[in-house]
């Protein structure tokens, strides 16, 4: 029991900031992001205390947070659910054929913009892209890790990241 609490204490120290950051990227409201982060830790802690099996804490925490965020969206604005799935699927096969380094070109293009602006633009994207891009570039997760968390294949995550980058670049250049 002691050990469990200790492990969890460490997890809280190490991941609370990054989970809060992630929640902040998805929620417009800072207080709400705070509450969701706390709820996420409480849920996982409760689960762990009841003897639930958790193999790796970090992805588990992300998954839990993700569910909470989805619940939040459902409760608040059902419309945005359509946005969340917008456009994915049909062009997938085309995207797969894209040269690998096009993502790099996009990254480089976005990198030229000032951080504050780029982050603000990222927050304007539909949530599905915002989620994928935050996990990839802010939380530093690999496409495979993201796939595990959101329950999709590494490939479709890569596609979404790529498409998100494209949108982000358009958004930034459009504002110029």
């Amino acid at each position, binding site marked *: 029991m002691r050990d469990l609490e200790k492990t969890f204490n460490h997890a*809280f120290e190490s991941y609370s*900031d990054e989970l809060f950051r992630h929640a902040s990227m998805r929620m417009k409201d800072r207080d709400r992001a705070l509450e969701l982060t706390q709820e996420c830790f409480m849920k996982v802690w409760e689960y762990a205390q009841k003897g639930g099996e958790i193999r790796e804490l970090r992805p588990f925490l992300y998954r839990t947070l993700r569910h909470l965020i989805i619940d939040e969206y459902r409760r608040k604005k059902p419309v945005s659910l359509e946005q969340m799935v917008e456009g994915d699927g049909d062009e997938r096969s085309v995207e797969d054929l894209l040269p690998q380094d096009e993502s790099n070109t996009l990254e480089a293009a*976005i*990198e030229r913009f*000032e*951080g504050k602006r780029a982050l603000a633009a990222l927050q304007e994207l539909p949530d599905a892209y915002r989620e994928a891009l935050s996990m990839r570039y802010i939380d530093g997760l690999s496409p495979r890790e993201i796939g595990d968390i959101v329950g999709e294949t590494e490939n479709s995550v890569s596609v979404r990241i790529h498409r998100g980058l494209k949108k982000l670049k358009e958004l930034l250049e459009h504002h110029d």
Partner: protein
Amino acid sequence: MTNLHNIRNEAEKIRLRSAEKSAMRASIFGTPTPVVLHRSSYVFLSPRYLVPLFVVLVVFIGGGTTSAAQGALPGDLLYPVKVSINETVEVALAPTPAAKAEVQVRLAERRVEEAQKLSLQGRLNKKTAKILSDDFDEHAARAVALAGPEPQEQITAAAPAEPEETLAPAQTTMMFQATIEATTTEATTTLEQEKPSLKKSKDRRNVLRESLRESLRIQSDILQELKTRASETELQNER
């Protein structure tokens, strides 16, 4: 591996404030861990404090350096002032061995906080981590020694102060700060802890010692982790 540093660096600024973090920790784990030892808010009213308080106020108003040093981190110009003047004074002004133990724990905790701050700013390297953790060990050892091996009745003022601790003023700064800290994170727990404090002081000392050990253990683990992380990043940077 990961690009988009512009966004990443900007997003790094989004983080929990320390008050938010401790409040969150408190609601997740029930009590705030690291466990904070009992501190009465009315401690200033005892005559034992009023005299030094007065002296210290004079100095506090005049000497900004020591208070400015309070937020210093290792590597900052004022850090030596903080450690060698402010903190020595802090220990020296604690009236009883139990109070001295509390101060020692607080100082140990402060080393961990400093390590965390440095780590967040990417300034924690192997050398600083070593210094901080040595200092932590020293304070922790003193705290444990002061808490005493066996439950004892209240030791009176007969207990001599440690020789190297000179009594100097300027300590209210920290006391004020401690109280401020106390009001934010411990507001809830003070109430809970005040009840047992009404019981026999023997019980209280036992509880105190237990929570002190626990607190130090957790802190020490956190510090250890930061230390490992610091040397890992250093290795990566060398490559």
